[in-house]
């Protein structure tokens, strides 16, 4: 009984609901044979993860999660519709060998993440609250734009240059296609 009352706080209930959503839809998105359904399930998973961040009052991360990941699903859907022929049909069954390889990859992934998670020295609850409370927009902004230790201007710039290269590349590819069309 005591165990129950200790764990039945509103936060925990919501956490379990979200966790259940993440697990169920995560599982479904891997096992379904229809690509668009997989994308939809993934959308729910990412949405629920944003919910987890909100639960931790990491509002900024939650909004980023929605904008970048869940928003990214839009692009995924567009590509799925554009690139995959016969969307309605189910994908082929994979061979045993492939199954084995992917199972090993998945299990090793889980092991690595678990090891990292448990290896991390989590502080107790109070200091964690302090940590979240301190993260406001200004700190994030300064950290992104700073050049000192634990500041990220260089990766930020590298990412933007990389994206720019991608854009230019796609423009070049597209114009080449157009020229071929004209010929």
């Amino acid at each position, binding site marked *: 009984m005591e165990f129950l009352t200790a764990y039945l706080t509103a936060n925990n209930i919501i956490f379990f609901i979200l966790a259940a959503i993440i697990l169920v839809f995560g599982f479904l998105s891997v096992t379904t044979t*229809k690509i*668009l*359904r997989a994308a*939809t399930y993934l*959308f729910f998973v990412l*949405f629920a993860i944003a919910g987890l961040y909100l639960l931790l009052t990491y*509002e*900024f991360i*939650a*909004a*980023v999660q*929605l*904008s970048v990941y*869940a*928003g990214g*699903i*839009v*692009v995924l*859907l*567009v590509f799925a*519709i*554009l690139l995959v022929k016969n*969307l*309605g049909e189910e994908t082929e069954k994979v061979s045993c060998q492939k199954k084995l390889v992917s199972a090993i990859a998945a299990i090793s992934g889980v092991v690595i993440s678990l090891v990292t998670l448990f290896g991390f020295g989590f502080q107790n609850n109070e200091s964690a609250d302090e940590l979240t409370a301190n993260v*406001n*927009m200004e700190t994030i902004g300064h950290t992104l734009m700073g050049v000192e230790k634990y500041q990220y201007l260089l990766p930020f710039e590298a990412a933007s240059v990389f994206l720019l290269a991608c854009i230019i590349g796609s423009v070049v590819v597209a114009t080449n296609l157009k020229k071929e069309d004209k010929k």
Partner: protein
Amino acid sequence: MLELDKFIEWIHSSLLYLIGLDWVVSLIEYVLIGVAFLSLYAVLALILIYVERKICAFFQCRLGPTRVGPWGLFQSIADMVKILLKEIIRIDKTDQLIFKVAPFIVIIGSFCTFGALQFGRGLHGVDFNVGLFYMLAISSLGVVGILLAGWASNNKYTLIGAMRSGAQLVSYELSAGISLLTMVIISGSLNLTDIIEGQANAWYIFQAPLPALIAFVIYLIAGHAETNRGPFDLPEAESELTAGYHTEYSGIQFGFFYLAEYLNMFIIAAIAATVFLGGWQPFHINADWAASFNGIMDCIPTWAWFFGKVFALIFLSLWVRWTFPRLRIDQLLKLEWKILMPISLVNLLLMAVWVLIF
């Protein structure tokens, strides 16, 4: 005088007095807030539909609805009842799950944004640290529903409509986001309460007239495009794609798309009013001689200011909707990528310089 925050405090204190248990009161209040938002959402849609029909009729030298109730006031209620009673047609050879989920995604995206709006002093559901960013992020999720609806209908028209919608939303979100970002420079915060408080003395559009005005116009255009309404109604271009992505939907499933479309119009207008026109802040002149004028302005309740501004912007959007012909898809993308995007990027810089100098 007519402020509602006192009323809400009164509800809170009387509930506390009556029940006394903190968590029960919180529970009741959560439910009450949910119900209030849902009913506001529905009622606003009804009002907007009526207003649009009357204004559209006015532009077209017609009368609009006149039969149901005085001046046809109950027309949209009659329509609502009709749409609730209509049969939901099951389409053969479709992915039923996605087909049914799609309208919910659209309306959830719209409702989650609606929940973060501030309707008056103390009249808001949640107050996020990053409210503006949150609204931008979550309002962009509706397009997932549109894409899924278009694909799941197993119809070529709906698919074309959905793809158009995808291209349109992804593009126009950029300049909408950048123009809001421009205003964040001046406010220095993403928190909606801070943004509104910052405009107590002068609305942002008056604080930095040139860049703010440019951003305002760009946001109106891009926001209008995000609502999928004419001249940007390509995803449901009625004369080209019959009804675009929602061709195959009927009954309340169609109703959800319809509702979301109207409320998105309201949300865009509300964000524009909040960020550029001071939200629920009354019109103030920041000078000593205008104290009495400011006092008179304060007499008007804040929620009236908010809805007044929003409806003025909605009128503008309807005006555009019923005047302009539809853009073609390449014109649409050209407008965004070659005109609005560069201008808003330069404007962002301009605003930064402006804030540094003044």
